[in-house]
């Protein structure tokens, strides 16, 4: 019997802590809420209850204490415990979602408010993560899938299409993109996922499970045939951000320096999406993070790492993921998060 292949141990790179002024303020907001909640007794529990109407209550069993126990004193604020809950998008979430999506299309001036309205109107598919019983109603994460064909007449979607087509510099992919936006638009879902940078990773599998489960429920439960078909996505289009090593010669996946990773994914799941994507391309972003030459950043997402970002430049990344690869993605995401010590 052949030995079972060892699952390649993914080397965990530190996620960059707050770079852009937006991310910095979002992280401050998040940590401010966290510190306020220091008195909360509840531990995080690790199971996710998915109720039939799509509301997902996520509790993570792992005590944050454990993950931070081997930190050697750099966690200045101490350990904070919080209960996160998932909700359907509501009109009241407008400002929170808008803040999260401020740099969705880099610094392009577009109808972001209209785009946020689309997300909030689609209550059947889409999730926002907030603290349970939070009076201040702070929003930590939004995730949704918008059908390109269903919303293609909206100004914001047209501006999004123009932007994505304009930043694509690979001629063979421009045609594929155009097809996705026109002929195949009815089968394409724009996957929007944005969160505060320091959201605990334990929330990711339930968050994406919530999304993809809602999509499959919508296919059965939506009142009209047209709506049901609008959630039968064959492809997901993802627009996201990464950090690429300055010395990497433009192509993703080529190591220029043996010590430093060529690509750093701001969101952990983007790496998994990238691996199962049918195609992807990256493009330089106009909004760049500010780094001093001596700057070093540490970040406590999975473990404690010190990380120098002066050699990296922020890039946008657009990927197309076939819907049949999603179960693989979900499994890999779960194992990635579960593997964390």
């Amino acid at each position, binding site marked *: 019997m052949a030995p079972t292949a060892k699952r390649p141990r993914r080397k965990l790179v530190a996620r960059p802590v707050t770079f852009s002024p937006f991310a910095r303020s979002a992280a401050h907001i998040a940590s401010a809420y966290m510190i306020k909640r220091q008195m909360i007794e509840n531990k995080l529990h690790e199971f996710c209850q998915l109720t039939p109407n799509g509301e997902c209550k996520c509790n993570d069993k792992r005590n944050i204490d454990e993950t931070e126990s081997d930190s050697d004193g750099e966690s200045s604020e101490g350990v904070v415990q919080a209960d996160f809950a998932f909700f359907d998008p509501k009109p009241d979430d*407008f*400002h929170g979602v808008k803040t999260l999506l401020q740099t969705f299309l880099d*610094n*392009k*001036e*577009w109808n*972001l*408010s209209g785009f946020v309205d689309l997300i909030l109107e689609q209550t059947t598919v889409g999730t926002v993560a907030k603290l349970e019983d939070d009076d201040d109603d702070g929003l930590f994460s939004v995730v949704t899938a918008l059908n390109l064909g269903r919303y293609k007449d909206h100004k914001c979607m047209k501006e999004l299409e123009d932007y994505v087509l304009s930043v694509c510099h690979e001629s063979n992919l421009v045609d594929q993109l155009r097809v996705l936006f026109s002929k195949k638009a009815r089968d394409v879902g724009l996957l929007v996922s944005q969160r505060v940078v320091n959201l605990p990773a334990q929330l990711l599998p339930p968050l994406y499970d919530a999304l993809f489960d809602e999509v499959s429920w919508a296919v059965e439960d939506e009142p009209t045939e047209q709506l049901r078909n609008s959630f039968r996505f064959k492809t997901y289009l993802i627009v996201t951000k990464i950090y690429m090593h300055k010395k990497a010669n433009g192509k993703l996946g080529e190591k220029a320096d043996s010590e430093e990773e060529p690509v750093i994914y701001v969101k952990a799941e983007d790496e998994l999406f990238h691996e199962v994507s049918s195609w992807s391309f990256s493009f330089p972003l106009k909004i760049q993070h500010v780094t001093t030459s001596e700057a070093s950043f540490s970040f406590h997402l999975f473990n404690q790492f010190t990380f120098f970002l002066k050699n990296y430049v922020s890039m946008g990344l657009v990927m197309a993921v076939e819907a049949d690869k999603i179960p693989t993605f979900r499994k890999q995401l779960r194992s990635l998060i579960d593997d964390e010590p």
Partner: protein
Amino acid sequence: MATRLQFENNCEVGVFSKLTNAYCLVAIGGSESFYSIFETELADVIPVVKTSIGGTRIIGRLCAGNKNGLLLPHNTTDQELQHLRNSLPDSVVVQRIEERLSALGNVIACNDHVALAHTDLDRETEELIADVLGVEVFRQTIAGNILVGSYCALSNRGGLVHPHTSIEDLDELSTLLQIPLVAGTVNRGSEVIAAGMTVNDWTAFCGSDTTATELSVIESVFKLREAQPSAIVDEMRKSLIDSYV
């Protein structure tokens, strides 16, 4: 008339601009469309001046002014001060003041006759406000907030204040300021009125998230619907011309 616009995808127009009856200040670095919207509305009537204050773009919150003068914080550079002195009409006194609370736009709310000030403002600053801006100064709070400059927007014809202002407070402030006041929001429920909009006697600029309801409240309380800049000038002309020979 009230106009809706954005500064680089940000709806907080009152942060990046300062509008009075005699001049308009606009932050540099925004797209040309931001500047040109102001120009289109105001071009022939009052000068629109691009500037920074202390190297920053948040000029609306750092300075306080009306048609008589402009107060700048201590961190305004000499070049910026000179640029403003050169670009603004001679009738406007431009003064840099030493005040610990340097975000003057947040601590002072004023129109051409009266000003509301932060309760902890220096005595000297209060006198300077009265001198430079030619106004009567009242130390007040708005809905319990001491940052009066942030939570209300005033013109000579009306004012919009924080939505949680009580009726008693509204009446008291209205008597003090001698203008009609209304409690409302801007930019789809934002309570920071002065950050979301900027206004003078005949026009207002609001963030693009402002709903139609909010816009109609703004237009009615500031009496913008029938207001024309020429009306103001005509009124002034009547008082300036003593007699025809």
